[in-house]
C-alpha cells in the first residue's frame, strides 16, 4: 500500500499536477482555491469531473481530507495517469498532501474530482459551492463554475512550474 502510494505521488509530481510557487506568492501565508470548475456530463453519463487549483502559500504542508457539497451525492478525488499509452483512473491517496508554497493543479488526464448524483437543475453557466476540508479541521469554501462537458480548465500559470 505504501509502495502504491509512493508510486502514485511520484506519478502526480511527474505529470506536473503539483507545482512549486515562486517568490511573488511565497508571501501569502494561506491556502486558497484559485479556480474551481465542474464540467457538465455528456447526456446520459453517470458522473462528471471537477477541477480545482488549490494553492498552499503557507510554510507547512496541508492535506486535503475531503471535498463536499450539498448539491452532489458524492465527490471523490481521483488520479488519471497515462503510462505506456494506457490511461488508468484510480482513487487518489487520501489525505492528499500539498507541500508548503506549492499548488495542486487538477486537470483532465491528471488529478480530478469525480462527482456523482447531481441535484436536478444544474446547468452550464451556473455555479455550485464546494467545501474543501483539510486534515487540520479547516475548511475552504469555493464557488465552482459549471462549464460545458469536456470544458478544459484554462491553462493556468503564475508560479514557476518545476516539472
Amino acid at each position, binding site marked *: 500500500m505504501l509502495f502504491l502510494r509512493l508510486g502514485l505521488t511520484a506519478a502526480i509530481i511527474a505529470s506536473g499536477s503539483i507545482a512549486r510557487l515562486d517568490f511573488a506568492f511565497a508571501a501569502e501565508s494561506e491556502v486558497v482555491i484559485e479556480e474551481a470548475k465542474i464540467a457538465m456530463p455528456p447526456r446520459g453519463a453517470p458522473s462528471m469531473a471537477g477541477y480545482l487549483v488549490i494553492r498552499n502559500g503557507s510554510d507547512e504542508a496541508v492535506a486535503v481530507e475531503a471535498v463536499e457539497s450539498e448539491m452532489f451525492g458524492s465527490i471523490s478525488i481521483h488520479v488519471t495517469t497515462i503510462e505506456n499509452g494506457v490511461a488508468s483512473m484510480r482513487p487518489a491517496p487520501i489525505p492528499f498532501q500539498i507541500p508548503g508554497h506549492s499548488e495542486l493543479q487538477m486537470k483532465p488526464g491528471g488529478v480530478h474530482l469525480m462527482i456523482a448524483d447531481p441535484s436536478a437543475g444544474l446547468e452550464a453557466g451556473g455555479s455550485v459551492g464546494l467545501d474543501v476540508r483539510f486534515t487540520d479541521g479547516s475548511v475552504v469554501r469555493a464557488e465552482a463554475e459549471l462549464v460545458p462537458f469536456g470544458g*478544459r480548465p484554462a491553462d493556468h500559470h503564475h508560479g514557476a512550474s518545476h516539472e
Partner: protein
Amino acid sequence: MSAMGIFRAAVWGLIAGCVAIIVYFGALQPRMTNELPPAAAAGADSTSGIGGPFTMTAHTGETVTEATYSGKPWLMFMGFTHCPDICPTTLAEMTSWFEELGSDADLIQAFLVTVDPERDTVDVLAQYMTSFDERILALRPAPEELERFAKAFKIHYEKVPFGEDDYTMDHTAGVLMFDSEGEFSGTLDLHEPRDTTISKLRRLIGKDRTT
C-alpha cells in the same frame, strides 16, 4: 587463414551485407510507391500489423465492419461512458477539431469504440453521442468481439475493480490514426498543442489527395 585473409573475408562480408540491405529496400520501394492497392480497410494488408476484420454495432443501429468506411482515413478512440475525465474531454476536443476542419472533416471517419460493452449498450451510446459532433460514430463490439478486435488493433483494455461494487476500465489512451489505405499512421495525444493536432489531421486528409 592469414590476417590479410581474415580482413578480406570481413570486407566481403560487409559488402554482401550492404547489397542485401539495398536489395531488401529496393524490393520494398515499388510496393510503397507504384502499387495502387484497392482501398483497403485497416490492416487488411497492413505492414504495421495493426488492424483486421471486425463487426460492431454503431450507436445509430447500423452494423459497421472494417469495410464499411474503407477508403477513408480513420480516427479511433477507445473509451467508455462511465469515464468522466479524459473520455468526454477527448470527444469534446475531437468535436472542436471537426468544427475547425469544417467540411474537410467529412473526409475522415471518427470512431469511439467502447471498451465497456457491458454497460455501454447501443441505447446508452446513442444518448451519449448527442453531446458531440454527429460525424463521430460510437461502436459497440460484443464482448468476445472486443477481445478479438483489441488483439488485432493492439489495443489494451482491462476491467479494474473500483470502490465497493463498481469498476473502471483501463484503456489505450490517445486517438489512433489510420490513413485511407488502412495503415496505422500515428496517435493524437490529448496534451499536444492544438496546432500540431490540426496539422496532423490535415496531413491525414491531404494524403488522400496527393497520392
